[in-house]
């Protein structure tokens, strides 16, 4: 492994050689032992990673944060049940409206059937049925 290979491998796997794939880690350890420049490269990369880790070190997630989530839960559950209830009420309402609409259409059709007699008789007569009874 050359210094360039080592530098590239650091970018791929980071400064912790224990987390490298085994063959590459073994070769890198050999290089670091033999070459002070490679050893310095590793130390500098480790320092760079520590800086990043320090910069993004997470704040503790304590009682206040946990309480904030727990406080939101009843609302979440209530919201969920409320939403479910709303959907059920909506579905029931729509079913009722459909039923009423169907009923009204049926009534209208029944009422119109008396008026349909004439056009039906004309169509039947046109198709050659002369037994149109009371119409002719």
């Amino acid at each position, binding site marked *: 492994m050359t210094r360039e290979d080592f530098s*590239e491998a*650091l*970018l*791929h*796997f*980071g400064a912790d050689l224990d*987390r490298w794939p085994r063959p590459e880690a073994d070769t890198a350890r050999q290089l670091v032992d033999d070459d002070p420049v490679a050893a310095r490269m590793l130390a500098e990369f480790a320092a*760079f*990673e520590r*800086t*990043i*880790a*320090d*910069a*993004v*070190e*997470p*704040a*503790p*997630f304590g009682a206040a*944060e*946990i309480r*904030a*989530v*727990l406080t*939101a*839960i009843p609302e*979440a*559950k209530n919201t*969920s049940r409320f939403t479910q209830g709303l959907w059920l009420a909506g579905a029931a309402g729509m079913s009722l409206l459909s039923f009423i609409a169907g009923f009204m259409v049926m009534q209208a059709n029944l009422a119109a059937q008396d008026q349909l007699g004439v056009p039906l008789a004309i169509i039947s007569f046109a198709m050659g049925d002369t037994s149109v009874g009371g119409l002719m």
Partner: protein
Amino acid sequence: MVEALGDETLSDEDLLARIADEDRSAFTILMRRHGQKVRGLALAFGGRPADADDVTQDVFIMLWRRPNSWQPGKAAFTTWLYRVVANRCLDQARRQRVRRWLPFEDAADPVDETPSALDALANRDRLAEVRKMILTLPEKQRLALLLAVQGEQSNAEIASILSVSEGAAEQLLVRARRRLRSLVAEQEVVA
């Protein structure tokens, strides 16, 4: 919110089974165990505490409502949880991008730059600068880097979390580390 002493040693799987029965103490233990990771990643990714709190709350409420979302055989709980957080972070970033184009955009919360006594310390300033540099990385590179550095996830785990191949995850890491190293080096030259 009193937990039996032994409950702290329960596995994530056992805790989730209890959460399915609406056991709040199990839920509290799960939050105590993973809250720092969840909020830490969200905050380092987005840089705004209020947004990080939203993501954290969103993730844990989802876990409370649907504790069976995690399938134990498929991925480790932490890997799966990081995937959920990463997706929430990316969704939030997407929504913010859309809002920036809308005329009725709410004013974005500014990143907290209030000087404090601690920030006066040089090292704190330096770390604050590094945090800002991290925020300049493209989203997936940023997530990959944070998962490696903060979450201590392996390249294979990062690939699984971000739903990319291991090679692609490595490339995200390479680009993120290269870019950040160059930015940090520039800062140190200036300083």
